[in-house]
């Protein structure tokens, strides 16, 4: 699709908003619909759209596969890490209330971090799967 001008121009305008919307879904999940799972998929969709229009090589320069592979594990580590942190603070595993002086704030921090972990893992897995499929085509 690299030779078509109109989709490229439209995508160039749209991609920042797709990524911004993913971040909105990620961090606004407490108030509206959405959360880590949806945000991760939308963010990955933005990167995949970029890869479809500007080529796999360009996308791999922006989001290197090695970084993606590390991020897959990092999201789960972040989630588990929050659980370990709550245990270290004297609570139960994933009992976010102990993360701050006010249990309500602790819950907010915990849910924010946990959702971030979910979002990072989902984004990274989706991009990695796309790289794996698209990479086979060119190989």
């Amino acid at each position: 699709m690299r030779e078509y001008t109109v989709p490229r121009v439209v995508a160039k305008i749209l991609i920042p908003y797709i990524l911004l919307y993913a971040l909105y879904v990620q961090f606004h999940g407490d108030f509206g619909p959405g959360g880590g799972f949806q945000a991760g998929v939308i963010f990955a969709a933005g990167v995949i759209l970029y890869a479809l229009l500007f080529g796999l090589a360009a996308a791999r320069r922006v989001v290197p596969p090695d970084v993606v592979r590390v991020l897959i594990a990092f999201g789960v580590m972040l989630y588990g890490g929050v659980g370990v942190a709550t245990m270290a603070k004297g609570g139960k595993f994933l009992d976010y209330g102990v993360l701050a002086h006010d249990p309500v704030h602790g819950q907010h921090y915990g849910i924010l971090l946990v959702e971030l972990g979910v979002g990072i893992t989902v984004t990274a897995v989706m991009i990695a799967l796309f790289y794996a499929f698209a990479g086979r085509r060119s190989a």
Partner: protein
Amino acid sequence: MTIAIDVFLMALLVVAAIAVIRLRSLFAAVMLTSVYSLLSACWFTLQDAVDVAFTEAAVGAGISTVLMLGTLSLTQRNEKGGRGGHPILGLAVVLLTGTALVYATFDMPHYGDPAAPIHTHPIYEEYVHASYDKFHIPNIVTSVLASYRGYDTFGEVTVILTAGIAVLLLLSRAREEEGPPS
């Protein structure tokens, strides 16, 4: 009015499903599967299941369509004819399963029934009313998903991790076998 929209969406879903089955062009089938997901997302929105609709639109209509197209570019564009198996046998299995599922719905409470177990169970009070006082999070789905059911969600993320690793291993291994030995 809502009934009309419900019936219209359901009819479109049935049309899309039959078209996917009858089409021999795999490209068109993939696009129609995406349309099917989008219609399902509209349907979920009508049922006030916005979070589910969101996921269906992003995953079903978005990412999985791209991955299916990626798979399509590795194989042929058209389905090969002459698949094995008796059509009558398949129809019988589908009809039996469908009948069993419809029969099972007779035990379910009616849609929107205030006496349904989900409204009378003690957990309803905790999730719908007490959760806001505890967490100050307006979206109950988020507080249930991340806090009440934190273990479940951790398990789900781990499933995504392992599934991703498994697919990556399969695909990279196949490439090594195809390519010349280095």
